[in-house]
């Protein structure tokens, strides 16, 4: 396996800049997730690494080799797509053998048989080897696609939303399987997705992309707890973080556009990172699990919606024109339009610059 390094990658399609000066280092044996909305440049990045797209400028290094001039075949990377792209008239075995039978490789027959067997065991499809691929379920097909990537023993695995076509239960199962597999193979794996749950649960590190730029690179814990700006804060986490515009009065009072206000305690003040005096206007972020229902004091609101999720309940509270979401235990009795009071866990508050959207707490 190999490490990967991207230096100042730029790519445009006509007028549209798909990648803007993108630099990224991915470690050997790392499960790295590129996360972002449609059009952020995730797939373009992956295709540049694979050699299916040529960047206008910048350097791509796999291991110690600069591979910009290399063809896709020479780069020795394996791609797995959302669509299974298997040969429908072939058996699973023939599909797995296919990449090894290319003229470029000239792999001996015993070696092919050995690798196919090993890959089939790894992704648990030994019992399907003689079945035609059009007779397989979605989950089985995706396992075969991954198996076909494994037989090649490539330097890098590149996966583009490979789980998106599967139903929720199967996705959950394959997430654990894939992460376990990557660790066992010691593979360097770059995984593209728009699904933050996939990114959080599988990635050793996540690179969050927006408009062709890397906004933040970090572990799932870092990205969730120390989002660099409001984009990352609201893209990662479900239910989404609560965000509202506010003004700071003195150093102690947060006033939200004529609707509600709350006093900052010392924990909350420390989250402002000493910038209160300089910044009258901020955007406040608070995750739903850090909104608490309180018996008295706090901020008055009305229950706008309550969703039972079994393990917890998600309550939407309306305060004037604002909607604040709170995660509460399922045992709390809640009825629609009920009056409630809420407070925030202040040592978990985020303050963002109202203009640049940068996180002030973790600047």
């Amino acid at each position, binding site marked *: 396996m190999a490490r990967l390094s991207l230096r100042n990658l730029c790519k445009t399609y006509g007028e549209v800049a798909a990648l803007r000066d993108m630099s990224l280092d991915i470690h050997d044996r790392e499960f790295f997730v590129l996360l972002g909305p449609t059009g952020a440049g995730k797939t373009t990045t992956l295709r540049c690494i694979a050699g299916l797209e040529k960047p206008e400028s910048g350097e791509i290094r796999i291991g110690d080799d600069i591979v910009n001039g290399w063809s896709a075949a020479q780069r020795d990377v394996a791609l797995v797509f959302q669509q299974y792209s298997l040969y429908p008239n072939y058996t699973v075995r023939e599909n797995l053998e296919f990449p090894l039978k290319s003229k470029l490789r000239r792999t001996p027959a015993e070696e092919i048989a050995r690798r196919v067997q090993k890959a089939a065991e790894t992704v648990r499809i030994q019992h399907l080897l003689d079945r035609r691929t059009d007779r397989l379920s979605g989950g089985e097909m995706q396992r075969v696609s991954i198996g076909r990537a494994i037989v090649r023993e490539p330097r890098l695995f590149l996966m583009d939303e490979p789980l998106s076509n599967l139903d929720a239960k199967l996705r959950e199962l394959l997430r654990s399987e894939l992460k376990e597999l990557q660790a066992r193979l010691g593979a360097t794996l770059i995984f593209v997705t728009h699904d933050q749950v996939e990114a959080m649960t599988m990635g050793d590190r996540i690179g969050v992309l927006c408009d062709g730029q890397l906004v933040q690179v970090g572990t799932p814990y870092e990205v969730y707890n120390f989002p660099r700006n409001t984009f990352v804060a609201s893209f*990662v986490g479900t239910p989404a973080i609560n965000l509202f515009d506010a003004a700071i009065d003195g150093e102690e009072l947060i006033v939200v556009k004529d609707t509600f206000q709350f006093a900052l305690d010392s924990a909350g003040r420390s989250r402002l990172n000493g910038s209160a005096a300089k910044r009258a206007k901020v955007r406040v972020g608070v995750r739903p699990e850090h909104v608490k229902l309180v018996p008295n004091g706090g901020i008055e609101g009305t229950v706008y919606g309550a969703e039972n999720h079994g393990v917890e309940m998600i309550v939407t509270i309306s305060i004037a024109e604002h909607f604040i979401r709170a995660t509460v235990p399922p045992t709390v009795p809640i009825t629609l339009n009920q009056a409630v009071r809420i407070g925030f866990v202040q040592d978990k508050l985020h303050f963002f610059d109202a203009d640049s959207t940068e996180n002030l707490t973790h600047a």
Partner: protein
Amino acid sequence: MADIDIIDAEKCFGSNRVIRKLNLQIAHGEFVVLLGPSGCGKTTTLRAIAGLEELDSGEIRIGGRRVDTLPASERDIAFVFQLYSLYPHLSAFENIAFPLRASNVPDKVVREKVKAVAKVLRIEHMLNKKPSALAGGDMQRVTIGRALVRRPKAMLMDEPIGALDAKLREQMRTELRRLHVENDSTTVYVTHDQVEAMSMADRIAIMNDGVLQQVGSPTEVYERPANLFVAQFVGSPIMNVLDCSIEAGESGANVRFKGMDSAFMFGAEVQRRVAASGSDVALGVRPEAVLVEPTRQPGYLPVDVHLIEPQGAYDVLDLRVGEAILRARTESQLVNQPHETVWIKLDETRTHFFDKKSGLVLRAQS
């Protein structure tokens, strides 16, 4: 009153029995979700209520009146599909007004009613636009507005928000639930998404292979699933279901998964419960009912952490227990590295035992 009674309903497509002896009573004002995988018969049931599908046998009553012999137009119900079926040449306003215009409601009343519905759906500012100028979520709001404007006896919805993106779906769940309450309507809602079912329903009716598996409140189906199918269809992360052996121990029942030396201790009642079934037994426990401690505790067993799946607000740990993998939901960062040892216990009151042959839950015997 728009209570809906489905009595002994049966429907076949060729040799495929899509609804089998279905009995379901929906009270006036209730929000009932028909939940199940594709092909389970939920949509066929909804279409039968609407009059778009004829039953082979059985009855459907709305407000006490038998309707399965009536055409769809005489049942006074509104239907919302997943795909927005709007008239492309009409504005959003006229699309919503369409059912009223069709029954010659005076223009002044039409305006009032459309405005009122648009306000609830928060689409007042786009009433002059044509459907082609609207985003997916807005189109679906217009579709729902058209269904609501007549104030029908019952609202039937077939995956109405399935095609929207995740954020919008979250928002629409809350809105649809509110609309239901504010309109005092009876709603029957079809989905394959258990999150939608859990978060909106008064009661969930879970179907599989044309057979009704369980009907109950979200809390009931989540905490007291009737069988293995319901147990694993509802809830995320999925409930752990593992083969187990149960033997008499010193102070109760010893429960082991394959490959385990030590055992989880349960009350003696568990053994009587399982003995009564006379079949192999599977244990079911939700990830949040696997109690995890970072240090040794009395009554807890040491296990190896195989994988950590962070979710932000919490973590899911894959634990190796004997030859089995058990998933546990813990606070974030309780464990920092795979292959650490943690101590676990199964919360007995939230552990289920299932007859493996029938799939049925074995209830505690009191």
